[in-house]
């Protein structure tokens, strides 16, 4: 096996995996706190991709051309807007269902994703959209025509993904806010009795999850350059798979699951068959869950008799 080809496929897998991981964190956080699969999360990411393009276009209109400034401002814009969207969705579509059975919010979430998808299609048109390439440059290893490479943008994705996960993990484990989150997660009623405004905590978690989707939206959009109103669904399903693979509810698990899934897809497509790469990815998921029914880093559910 060619070392450079293998190296390139691993880089490909890491980049793809990091994008899955970034989105998966949003799934995992929401699941962790209220135990629901937020199917609309992928669409929130899709909205942030559009915001990226709109933000860049508006900033360019005002004559800003420094790429890092552009990215920074767009990121801020996307994060603020997307978190607001996340909180609003939670308030309108999920909070009324707090006490309903577990499946009601799931259906509501499917409804929300239909709404978002079609709203964006109606307002922005069905066509493919794109953003210009802002960051160029690539790091290559090897000789002139025998090398493997990673672009600067890809490096940014991997670094930001890991950083975001680490910061979030720190927040959850070591701050008062994180304690409130964990308390709400373990026993919402008890947390409420102890003076935690659980509604606020839950809204906050939705906001943070959406903010991460915004980060993912900006970076992924800049990296691949094109998107349409359908990307949320395609990436969303994969990211959700990644979250479950890593153990849903666990932040490092989401990242690990994402990277594992990305690597699996990329290596299988690269060395076996890209036709069956998704079959392989799902088979891997099934295989791992058979032997670790709670995912790689999830806490096993103890059957207490």
């Amino acid at each position: 096996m060619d070392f450079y080809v293998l190296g390139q496929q691993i880089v490909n897998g890491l980049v793809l995996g990091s994008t899955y991981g970034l989105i998966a964190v949003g799934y995992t956080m929401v699941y962790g706190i209220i135990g629901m699969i937020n199917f609309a999360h992928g669409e929130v990411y899709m909205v942030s991709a559009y915001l990226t393009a709109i933000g860049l276009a508006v900033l360019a209109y005002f004559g800003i051309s420094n790429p890092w400034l552009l990215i920074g401002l767009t990121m801020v814009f996307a994060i603020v807007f997307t978190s607001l969207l996340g909180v609003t969705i939670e308030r309108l579509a999920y909070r009324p269902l707090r006490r309903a059975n577990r499946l009601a919010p799931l259906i509501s979430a499917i409804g929300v994703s239909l709404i978002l998808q079609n709203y964006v299609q109606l307002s922005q048109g069905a066509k493919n959209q794109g953003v210009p390439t802002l960051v160029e440059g690539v790091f290559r290893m090897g000789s002139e025509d025998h090398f493997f490479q990673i672009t600067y943008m890809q490096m940014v994705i991997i670094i930001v993904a890991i950083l975001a996960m680490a910061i979030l993990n720190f927040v959850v484990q070591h701050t008062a806010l994180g304690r409130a989150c964990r308390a709400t997660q373990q026993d919402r009623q008890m947390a409420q009795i102890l003076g935690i405004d659980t509604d606020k905590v839950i809204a906050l978690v939705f906001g943070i999850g959406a903010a991460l989707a915004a980060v993912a939206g900006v970076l992924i959009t800049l990296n691949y350059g094109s998107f349409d109103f359908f990307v949320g669904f395609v990436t969303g399903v994969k990211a959700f798979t990644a979250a479950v693979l890593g153990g849903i509810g666990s932040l490092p698990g989401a990242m690990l699951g994402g990277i594992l899934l990305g690597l699996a897809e990329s290596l299988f497509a690269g060395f076996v068959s890209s036709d069956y790469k998704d079959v392989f990815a799902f088979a891997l998921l099934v295989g791992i869950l058979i032997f670790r029914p709670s995912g790689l880093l999830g806490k096993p559910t103890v059957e207490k008799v």
Partner: protein
Amino acid sequence: MSRRPVSRTMLLSLFAALITLILTGPLSGLVLNGYDFTTRFAAPLQIAAMVLILRFIAGLLPASWLAPKQKHEVEPRAPRFKTYQLVLGGLVLYLALASLVLFASKYWLAVGIMALIYVLLGLGLNVVVGFAGLLDLGFVGFYAVGAYGYALGHQYLGLGFWAAIPLAALLAGMFGMILGFPVLRMHGDYLAIVTLGFGEIIRLVLNNWMAFTGGPNGVDAPAPTFFGWEFKANVTQGGVPFHEVWGLEYSSGMLDAFIFLVLLAVVGLTLYAVSRLRGMPIGRAWEALREDEIACRSLGLNHVWTKLSAFAMGASIGGVAGVFFAASQGFVSPISFSFFESALVLAIVVLGGLGSVYGVILAALFLTLMPEVLREFADYRILIFGFAMVLIMIWRPRGIIQQRRPFFKRAGS
């Protein structure tokens, strides 16, 4: 009935409108055009104005109209009708619905067939999700197994429609077992994602295995026949044309009418069977398993077998639905079995009310007929559909119809 003060309502409406304005501002107001954009500031203002008005009207309505009002439990009640009355009622209903074929246009017949297929799918998934409490997001896989079972069975083995129905049920049931086995130890949402994965695997294999399934081009499925009568202008399966036997003029609607009638009967039978299941030992065991697996084991119930049987039963109903889908479409291709279909069927089960067979029927009719009725609204169709899903869930979190538990009268009283 208490009314909230108007001034507060006004304030809340304004707040809602403001949020709407912020949220729709960039997406509706700035339209991407290449790497550039054009402005359309009227759009977000219009949307915000609409939200303002709607929110204000909603605020003026008595609070109790809007609040979700659903008791947690519905008390079981002694049945009001005797068995023979129910059977008679069912027959009358069947005849009434069957007579639709005389009036409905071919288009509405086709829509009716799709609606009934979704009723069947909903009933099948209801066994898995509603009764046994196993969240299955890959139900469409069994639907695909049934549809392809019929189409490929005809192509390779020369199977006919009537042989395909039981065989597809069996085949899909087997697939259900195969899927059920690895997920036995998984709970809740892990189960959901694994079943989703299974559904996708089935679809992807159907799409990629060119040599066997025809890949994306799909396979032709034969039109059903009835004791050698064919409902086509020219016979292709060695039978006699139905319209010639009866001296009728050929109409392309005959095939649909026939499928509709058979399907209606199958749905009726399934409906009867599934509603019987609730009061039968196996149905009770499924529900008990949903409630508490550990208690079930302590009572000597084989949880492995019980779970597998739920998967198998649900899957075989899905498989039968698949046969009808293939027969009515005349051909099958993998695009028809995407995850979205699974989500739709799940929505039918949950909107209808978990475990409620009549709710499933209502929800299936609602979810399949509404997009057709909304076709006039073309572009806004799916948007309205999405809003309806969210609103119904908020309005009735336990589903449109909450099923009563079966009532058991003391013997001799």
